[in-house]
């Protein structure tokens, strides 16, 4: 943790240069791997008892069958959980969330959405997130927390029955888990697309500047 703080001080010193501190980059890519493993194995688990009238193609799932997919899901779970918790703690402790993601005002969001849709949203200063980014990044953190909580209630519906009650009942927690996955996938598509449209933002997430 002390090394992380040191990195942060370093940022303020060389603010113009470092856009994404090392801890953000490491956790971002760790999360990317964990998420992809969770989503692909999750699709295979979904296929065992689909909630809707469709199944995911076997080509894009992980695990081969339900048993294999469950092993992947409950292994990648640790990576996602540990990394996610570390990210939340560091994000709050360093004030990054407050500095980067707040405030989110409705007028700001409306203005930036309009600007984005007419391709006038500028990215001159990558250290400052626009309102669309703030909303999406803060929103996906909330979705991330929700998908973990709904997942935990499906994993331990007796031990954590109070958590299940929070979602209504066990079947509802399944739907919440599914829709959070869908939201993350939608985010992923937009996120990757925008990163490719503004390649310097992708570079910043890889080498930091």
């Amino acid at each position, binding site marked *: 943790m002390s090394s992380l703080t040191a990195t942060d001080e370093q940022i303020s010193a060389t603010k113009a240069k470092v856009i994404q501190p090392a801890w953000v980059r490491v956790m971002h890519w760790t999360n990317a791997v964990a998420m*992809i493993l969770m989503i*692909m194995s999750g699709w*295979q*688990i*979904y*296929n*065992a*008892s*689909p*909630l809707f009238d469709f199944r995911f193609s*076997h*080509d*894009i*799932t*992980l*695990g*081969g*069958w*339900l*048993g*294999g997919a*469950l*092993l*992947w899901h*409950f*292994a990648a779970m*640790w990576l996602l959980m540990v990394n996610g918790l570390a990210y939340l703690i560091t994000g709050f402790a360093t004030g990054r969330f407050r500095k980067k993601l707040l405030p989110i005002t409705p007028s700001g969001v409306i203005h930036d959405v309009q600007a984005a849709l007419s391709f006038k949203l500028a990215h001159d200063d990558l250290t400052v997130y626009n309102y669309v980014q703030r909303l999406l990044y803060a929103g996906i953190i909330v979705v991330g927390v929700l998908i973990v909580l709904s997942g935990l209630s*499906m*994993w*331990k*519906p*007796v*031990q954590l*029955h109070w958590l*299940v009650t929070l979602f209504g009942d*066990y*079947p509802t927690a*399944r739907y919440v888990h599914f829709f959070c996955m869908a939201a993350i996938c939608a985010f992923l598509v937009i996120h990757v697309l925008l990163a490719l449209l503004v390649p310097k933002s992708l570079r910043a997430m890889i080498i930091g500047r």
Partner: protein
Amino acid sequence: MAKRSFLIPGVDKRLLIKDSLKVMPDLTRRRFIAGGASLGALTLLTGCDVIDSSSAEEMLKSVSKFNDAVQDFIFNPDALAPTFPESAITKPFPFNAYYDLDDAPEVSAADWKLEVRGLVDNKKSWTLDELYKLPQFTQITRHICVEGWSAIGSWTGTPLRDFLKLVGADTRAKYVWFQCADKDGYNSPLDMRTALHPQTQMTFKYAGEILPRAYGFPMKIRVPTKLGFKNPKYVVSMEVTNDYKGGYWEDQGYNSFSGS
């Protein structure tokens, strides 16, 4: 609701049969990890063959064992599974197995005896009439399948912990291992703490009626704190043991603790 009842009966059963057929053949039975296609997808993503199938399998097995330990650690034997009113019961309650209902065991009540083995004082076998005389209780709980679907049912029977006490079982032993009459010899180990959980039941009735063939006649072990595959039906013997003897699905890769 309509959606759920549509899901339960047909869909998963077919898939389960398909899954089991796929994994059954002798030596490949234990190779439960990804077929080429899905691992191929991951290889494409990473651009190199990072996941060697057998080492991934070993890694996943170790994590699953680690998960057994974690689940055992956080298992609170006093935490009760939620119970429901009769109005919440799922009708019809789904039949679910790795075979069709026609292939379910047909156990003759007159010939059947429950064999009790292992670390117990009294190894006598029990007839159905003898077991029916034990005090019975009814509980309405949610059955949760490893596939994700769930259904609420009403089960009546004797708490397993009372029976274990009656036969003088060594409750310091690690497992109670059940063997069943299903084709291919279904079996499943139950950790002792779960076996002693107040809601773990030797079940003789479903919805107030003698357990029908579909739900495991003559005896099922109902464990509301475990996934469905750890609720064995058509039980023919129980063994109190310190050895991990594996189980039908556990051996194929389902997490062994699989507790909820």
